């Protein structure tokens, strides 16, 4: 429904005037997006980080499913856990890897904790709302997918993503595009099957299901073992909620294993709305205001002209 409204609204706007279409269209859709709390039956994944052993099977499964190029080090090489990129940061998603598993040594904990990183498939994705060619779609199944055919390559989505997920194939000259996890939408999710990484996991770290059921399951899990799990379902409310959610161990709080806990509960688009709200005001008030200024500023000339005419 939303999409149809946007299109038909824009058509009308284009007829009315180019600038007006741009601006009023922007404001109107932002409002609509504000009421959008996610599709009711969308799917999600609950990741229990306490179970992950960092075996990288999911990385291999993702690589195969998405036909990505083979990495320099094979997937059974655990030395990647000690790798650090620029700024001493652990590995991140790249154009060649849509998911990575990183190791975190947490003080006061005997064993390291592993964290799987991939697109969290936000309920109100920042990448989607920031894209000026509408390349992103949040499907009713919950995946945030991307249309490489319309992407111009402005990379605003990479600026907007609070999780630093979208990567860009900078190496391509003719057809550079955004590369990110699409929750195996084309090959699996569309047909009701879980993503390849979920299915491949030997530890059953990830649970695939309806997001609303997973939220319940997460809270039940915490309640049943409060001495084991931290009382926080990461992704339940973060930036308006995400399809992928996480549980962590009570002695390894999220902020110590690389999660941004200051990210806020509002969808990113909410921070942009104050600007979008002024757009129609400027468009409607400015013409009258400035023409008025013009009449005021030139009133003496006008009077003179009238006098000389009479």
């Amino acid at each position, binding site marked *: 429904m939303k999409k149809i409204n*946007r299109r038909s609204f*824009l058509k009308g706007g284009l007829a009315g005037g*180019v*600038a007006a*279409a*741009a*601006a009023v*269209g*922007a404001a109107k859709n932002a409002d609509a997006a504000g009421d959008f709390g996610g599709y009711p039956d969308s799917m999600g994944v609950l990741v229990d980080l306490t179970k992950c052993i960092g075996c990288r099977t999911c990385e291999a499964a993702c690589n195969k499913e998405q036909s990505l190029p083979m990495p320099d080090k094979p997937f059974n090489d655990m030395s990647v856990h000690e790798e650090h990129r*620029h*700024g*001493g*940061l652990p590995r*991140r*998603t*790249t154009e060649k890897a849509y998911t990575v598993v990183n190791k975190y040594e947490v003080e006061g904990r005997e064993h390291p904790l592993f964290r799987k990183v991939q697109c969290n498939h936000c309920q109100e994705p920042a990448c989607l709302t*920031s*894209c*000026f*060619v*509408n*390349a992103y779609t949040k499907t009713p199944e919950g995946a945030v997918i991307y249309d490489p055919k*319309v992407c*111009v*390559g*402005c*990379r*605003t989505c990479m*600026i*907007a993503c*609070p999780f630093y997920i*979208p*990567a*860009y194939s*900078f190496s*391509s*000259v003719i*057809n*550079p*595009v955004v590369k990110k996890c699409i929750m195996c939408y084309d090959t699996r999710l569309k047909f009701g099957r879980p993503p390849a990484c979920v299915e491949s996991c030997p530890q059953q770290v990830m649970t695939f299901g309806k997001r609303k059921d997973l939220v319940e399951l997460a809270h039940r899990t915490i309640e049943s073992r409060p001495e084991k799990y931290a009382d926080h379902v990461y992704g339940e409310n973060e930036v308006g909620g995400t399809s992928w959610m996480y549980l962590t161990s009570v002695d390894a709080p999220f902020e110590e294993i690389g999660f*941004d806990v*200051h990210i*806020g509960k509002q969808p*990113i*688009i909410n*921070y*942009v709305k*104050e*600007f*979008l709200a*002024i*757009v129609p005001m*400027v468009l409607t008030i*400015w*013409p009258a205001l*400035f*023409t008025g*200024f*013009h009449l005021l*500023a030139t009133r003496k000339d006008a009077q003179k002209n009238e006098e000389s005419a009479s």
Partner: protein
Amino acid sequence: MKTFVAQGLKPVDSLMKPGANSEWTLKEKLLLGLSPGDYMKQLVRNPFNWIFAIIYAIGVPVLLGRFYYGLGWATHGSYDYPWGLFLGWGLFCMVPLSASGFMLGTTVELFGRKDFKPIERLGLLNGLLGYLFAVMFLQVDLGQPWRLIYPMFVSLGPAAVLFLVAWHVATYLSVQVAELVPAASEMMGWKAPKKFVKSIVLGLTVAGVILSTLHQGALGALFTYAPGKVHPLWYNYSFQWFHFFCSSIFAGLSMLIVVSTLSKWFLKWRCDANFTKNLDRITLGLSKGASLALITYLIIKLTAIAHDNEWGLLFTGWGQWYIFEICFGVLLPLFLYTVAIRNQSARIARFAALIAVLGILLNRLNTALITFNWQLYQEIPHWREVVITITIYATYILVYRACLCRLPILFTWKGDAK
């Protein structure tokens, strides 16, 4: 050119050749009334052209390399810093410095301040070229530049701030071209286009104000998408657009003072008495406007800190960097402008303008690159990125100079078309 003028050459400034009953041909107009040989001679004699030649010798191959080997070759190809110098400098710095177009249009055409007329066209040209080259920078930065029109006609994402920027910059570019049609008409001897633009100038100017308010603000609003990435002192979701809009006012006016000063120094032969005699008075007039915008900007910047209660952050390392930016980029030019206006000294005003321009560069680079990802790491742009940026900026200066030499911007065209 100086030498030729000293030898008694009169640069083209009318349709008819002086003393003869024939018109200048287009070729003669483009060659500034020189013979091709003489034209080459003055090109070679000008030391600036040698600097440009060196820049091009290094820069053009690198620029071509960006399109042959891809962005990953020309930049770090960073996923964490998707925007580098091309946008940080080319879009976020060039656009505010080009706000002079709508400022001067408003002052002269809307507010009826005809006393600023001698510099109006320079303001408009500064605007047009700044925007044009911002688009050039964008074309170098986009992954698929041939899809530039996609947001207009192929796939529309009207809820995005960048959608607004794209449409507004495109429309505003056409408005600015239209506003400069009179200058081109005079030179080419056309009558109808000039008359037509004159009849719609009020509409054009109002459109210019609307579009400028919104896209200058929108450039700031682009960063509201990244609440956790831009340092909180440079981020404020309520005021971000106003910070960018308000600072573009003094940025545009100060850039105009800087450009007019450079024209006065290096293109003296091209400036007529109407321009040179009025310039000091106009510079002080622009200074008044700029200082008003500066004080407004200062207050709204402090309001933003108070609004988010970020006073504590001022005592951190980033806070000191912020205080430096405010002191150097806002307080110092504000003080200098005030001194200039009190003492009626255009010289001090010109210095103040230079500082204000540097201050705005610092602010935009701080927001887009330096404080961006403040919790991650700093990234120094790749050398090829720097070279390409310098090359495109050099082209901007060259085109600017070529326009100033030929179009009636710094001088008044003698005699209209019949």
